[in-house]
């Protein structure tokens, strides 16, 4: 069974790295990638989280001041 991922955009590569570290500490496996989703999100950093962990991930990120880029959560970029 393939795992579905969601993409949470954050404001910088530093926030992406911070999120990665914090989420790894909580046992949520993530990876980060650079995305260009559209003009309003040009050159953005994406924290890719398993769909089932999105709620937990958002809560951890918010509690630790990880700044998101907008409120939208995107489906993982098809690859």
């Amino acid at each position, binding site marked *: 069974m393939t795992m579905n991922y969601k993409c949470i955009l954050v*404001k*910088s*590569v*530093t926030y992406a*790295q*911070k999120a990665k570290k914090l989420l790894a500490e909580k046992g949520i496996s993530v990876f980060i990638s650079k995305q260009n989703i559209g003009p309003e999100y040009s*050159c953005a950093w994406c924290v890719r989280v398993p769909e089932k962990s999105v709620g937990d991930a958002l809560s951890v990120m918010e509690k630790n*001041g990880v700044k998101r880029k907008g409120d939208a959560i995107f489906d993982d970029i098809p690859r």
Partner: protein
Amino acid sequence: MIYLDNAASSFPKPQSVVSRAVTFLRENGANPGRSGHFLSAQASEAVFEVRDLAASFFSADPESVVFTKNATEGLNCAIAGLSEKGKTCVISDIEHNSVIRPVMRLKQRGETSVFVLKTGENMFSELEKKLSAGRISFVAMSHASNVTGEILPLEEVYSLCQKSGIPLINDASQTAGFLEYEPGDILCMPGHKGLYGPQGTGLMIFRNRELLPRIRPLLAGGTGTDSADLFPPEILPESFEAGTLNTPGICGLGEGISFVKRKAAVFRPRETRLRDFLLNGLLAMPGIEVYSSSGNSVPVLSFNVAGFSSEAVTEVLSLRGICVRGGLHCAPFCHEKLGTLSRKGAVRVSLGAFNKQEECEIFLREIKRIAPKKEK
């Protein structure tokens, strides 16, 4: 060779610092935070690890840690940002030119007034009076003198500043890595002194992020994010790090901080012991005027030899393989206070993690050879 100029830049560097910087150059070399490929991602991760390490070392959030090229860059940025027209900034009489020159340049442009606080006995009452009189934009102060080594009571200064709601910029150039705690709203420091990183590295740490809207980055340019936006993003730390980072240097700095974390408990007391040894040795010699005292100090001390300029002494020592620094040490106020401006400065000795007792013994022997045999 005996290196006693660690206050200018620590040397040698720990092997781990050299290896890490070289390994990055040899095995990675990609631009962190720019591209999406794996090598750039690894570089980003390497930079973040050092940011995170520095954050935990200086009790801050990782995103509050800005990589600069030295302490001067951070100080210029913080001073320019917090300065306000029609207000006065407070600096001390032991400051380095990295604080003096940015405030004096602003003064010259009519953008601030400057009050130079006399350190010593009446320092707190003077500062309190100045702060309560109002119209102070900020206080910028070294945590320790780069000439005498004296540590200033910055925690108390910070407490007074906090009571008055005035931000404190801490120039931690001589204390970062030596003292356990660095007080202040913004900390500026080099990476290449007490943190044992490579030259070309420094940190500016925003402890108080409420000050952020007042501080403009010195440079605008690419940050790897929001590329369609024609204006720089206002986000820590990237907005203060436009352009490509000194990633090999930052990697080395991370190892330097780790080295301090692992070993400081061993080498810092030794540095203090060696400073006391040098101080007592110099005080016992005729014809030597010492400007430092024992007690609360970083491992730095200054002196002069009767009948010689400081540069003449350093030149003789250099010919004998000993590296120390003469002159004014970029600290004209401090030399004015010591009465050494007219003597063109002093000889400064500064110790580091790798100095040994035998080196200090050789140093004292060489000074004895230069010094007059009897007090004139």
